[in-house]
């Protein structure tokens, strides 16, 4: 008798993002409960179809602006605000996760974001506010293209020189930002086509800016499909899990790595497009220090710096958690200065939790394996005794 190898069934313990979702729910509840409420100006759509302040008549018979009392955290405006703030980091964290899965790291994402943004700005700016669709397309393609190209250069150098990605991207972090500075003389470049800005800033309801949110979700879905469903995605995990074994399995390790860095650059380019449209300007100082937030989001999201582990959804949720904490401190009236300390602690706590989880998973596996071993041994024994 042999133990049959069943095909895998769905098992909740194999859904690693479950823990992150739980953390988000708990954080949300805490913020909703302890954040208290706030009075916000009330708006309404006037008879002319425009948005205007709602008025009420007070005791003295005067018309005064109306206010509404809402939960400080749990209201549409705050939630969308958090989502928008998250989107820049989350988009880059999805790319970063791919690189981290290969066992690498990209310290230059912030600089790629800046140089891509400046390059796009230099294309868009000459068209001015009256620029049309061609200008917009050209600007968007340039921004994303420059991001991807810079990522490709990272990957190509890492592969060709066989130098640790930490070193290469530490170098390109300075180089890329330096080029952005030289290009712009440190000036902020603005004055983009109105159509472009209006598109990125499009609001579904007043103050509910949805485009960054939607782009973030699309990037996460694309990243998730890439990693989990495609052959190249599988190779990404294999390269990070064991580079030598991957080579012995015929995987072109160098190209997989180059692709990973290119995709991270591409993600930084997409984030740069959103920032250009949303804030209306690009400068060489954009995204200063973003690399650390992005790496933190990926790590909180379950990516292992040793390689071989991580998911796109995890990256998104990791970014959401960090942003919720950062915004949450404001909601709780804790001085913003503390946010760095808290975020640092969260990163360490997340990694510790992950390690604990890995130990538990190993324990579960050992229990199952030893059960099988016993079964096999007893089968062997009974076979032996029957032949005697």
């Amino acid at each position, binding site marked *: 008798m042999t133990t049959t190898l069943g095909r895998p069934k769905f098992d909740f313990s194999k859904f690693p993002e479950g823990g992150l979702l739980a953390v988000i729910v708990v954080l949300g509840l805490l913020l909703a409960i302890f954040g208290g409420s706030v009075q916000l100006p009330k708006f309404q759509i006037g008879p002319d179809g425009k948005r205007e302040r709602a008025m009420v008549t007070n005791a003295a018979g005067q018309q005064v602006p109306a206010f509404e009392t809402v939960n400080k955290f749990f209201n549409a405006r705050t939630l969308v605000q958090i989502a928008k703030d998250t989107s820049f980091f989350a988009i880059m964290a999805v790319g970063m996760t791919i690189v981290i899965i290969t066992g690498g790291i990209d310290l230059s994402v912030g600089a790629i974001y800046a140089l891509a943004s400046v390059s796009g700005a230099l294309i868009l700016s000459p068209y001015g506010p009256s620029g049309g669709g061609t200008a917009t397309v050209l600007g968007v393609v340039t921004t994303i293209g420059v991001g991807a190209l810079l990522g490709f250069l990272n990957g190509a150098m890492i592969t060709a020189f066989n130098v640790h990605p930490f070193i290469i991207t530490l170098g390109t972090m300075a180089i890329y930002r330096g080029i952005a500075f030289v290009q712009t003389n440190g000036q902020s470049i603005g004055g983009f086509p109105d159509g472009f800005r209006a598109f990125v800033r499009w609001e579904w309801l007043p103050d509910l800016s949805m485009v960054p949110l939607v782009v973030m979700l699309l990037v996460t879905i694309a990243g998730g499909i890439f990693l989990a469903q495609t052959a190249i995605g599988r190779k990404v995990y294999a390269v990070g*899990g064991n580079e030598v*074994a991957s080579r*012995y399995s015929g995987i072109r390790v160098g190209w997989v790595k180059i692709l990973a860095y290119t995709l991270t650059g591409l993600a930084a380019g997409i984030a740069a497009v959103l920032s250009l449209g949303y804030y209306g300007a690009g400068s060489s100082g954009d995204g200063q220090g973003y690399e650390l937030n992005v790496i933190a989001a990926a790590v909180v999201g379950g990516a292992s710096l040793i390689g071989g*582990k991580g998911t796109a959804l995890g990256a998104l949720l990791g970014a959401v958690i960090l942003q919720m904490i950062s915004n949450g401190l404001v909601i709780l009236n804790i001085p913003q200065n503390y946010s760095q300390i808290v975020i640092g602690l969260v990163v360490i706590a997340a990694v510790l939790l992950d390690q604990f989880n890995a130990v538990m998973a190993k324990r579960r596996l*050992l229990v*199952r394996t030893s059960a099988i071993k016993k079964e096999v041994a007893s089968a062997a024994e009974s076979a032996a005794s029957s032949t005697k």
Partner: protein
Amino acid sequence: MAFLSVEHISKTFPGVKALDDVSVEFEKGTIHALMGENGAGKSTLGKIIAGVYTPDKGVIKLDGQEVKPTDPRIAQELGLAIVHQELAFCPNMTVAENLMLGSMPAKAGFVNWNKLRDRAKSLLLEIGSDIDPDTPLAQLTTGQEQMVQIASCVGTNAKMIIFDEPTSSLSTRESEHLFELMERLKERGVTMAYVSHRMDEIFRICDTITVLRDGKFVATEAIASTNRGRVIRQMVGHEVLTERPKYLDLQPGEEILRVENLTSTGKFQNVSFNVHRGEIVGMAGLVGAGRSETATAIFGLDRNAKGDIYIKGKKMSIGNVNEAMRRQIGFLPEDRKRAGLVLGMSISDNVSLPHIDHFSPLGFVDRKREMIEIEKLTKRLRVKAPSLDSITAGLSGGNQQKVALAKWLARTCDLLIVDEPTRGVDVGAKAEIYHLLDEVACQGVAILMISSELPEVMNLSRRILVLREGFLTGEVVRENFSQEALLHLMA
């Protein structure tokens, strides 16, 4: 009275009982074999004596006195040392520095380099080794590293040394050297425990044998009063048959692989041979003779190789793995943990790795088809694991090896190169792998098998190629197989 005795030792690791109420007595100045399948608990027992692990229950008595070697340092002070595979040294430091790591001769905090070198040299001489103490450890062969470990044990005045599978990556010559050294240590009254899978060695050098199974004590017997069949029965409960492979009764087919004057500087020179469909060709030689290197070059992983490789009569370019795989070559590498498997990935992901593009029309993995094919394969190979989703790191050596082999059986291949297919695998899995290779050969695959175990190559091969120091020194056909003939060509 025994020199060292362990009494009623139990040790549990998360989820698995590694040792369950085990008692063994080690007599002074003897070599005592610890045998058992993978996971039987023999290594765990060795590590408990050497203070690497602390037992949950039970006592250890040294000369009748209870001792508690709770960490390797305390064990060392008690004279209990271990020589094992995983290096306990710093690879970037020299041999001398490593040997003196615990007791650097120093004055006012500064190392006395001359004294350090002299002491290291005299230690190495004591065990009859001519290793230069100034060599960085990373430059030594595995065998030399082991010599350094032994020198270190002697240096700390070890009275008992545990050898944990010391020969599994040694060449025959290095093993011989090790055995001589063990004999000398024995004469000096050192007690030794010898953990190994290799029956030949145990029956040659050991005095006593203790068999463990599934963490439980089975028997302790004098070597003189037992035999292999009995030991194997004690280990697995059934006897492993070494029957004649069936493929030998079939006619080999056309030539699949022809290698002409294959050379890679510093590794092997002018190697020429061929392998036909439906036969197993063995490749014997000492470690460093260039066997694995030749195999690696045929599989396209050596860009510096020169010469000609023909697959089914058509020339293949050198140094291109992907072409080798397109030409239906499969390669089971020597070191499954380093090169054979991605240990952090599941069984199914590992098996499909070389063929992932094949399973992915349009770039998207067809999970369903992948699973169906892999399930068929793992059933045929009798891989024992909770599910196809199990991470390979948690499997036993034998099951890991089956998964590594399955990678190349997932699709038809014309040539299968297997490098040490049964290394570190328990007896039961070994027999299964032999059957499998035979079966695959019967199906018309050409197999090139590298192995350091002569009985293994001699039993399975139709012809044996022998390499020595990078040169092909001979080819022996089955009628002429004998240990003497092969050893003569090897050394």
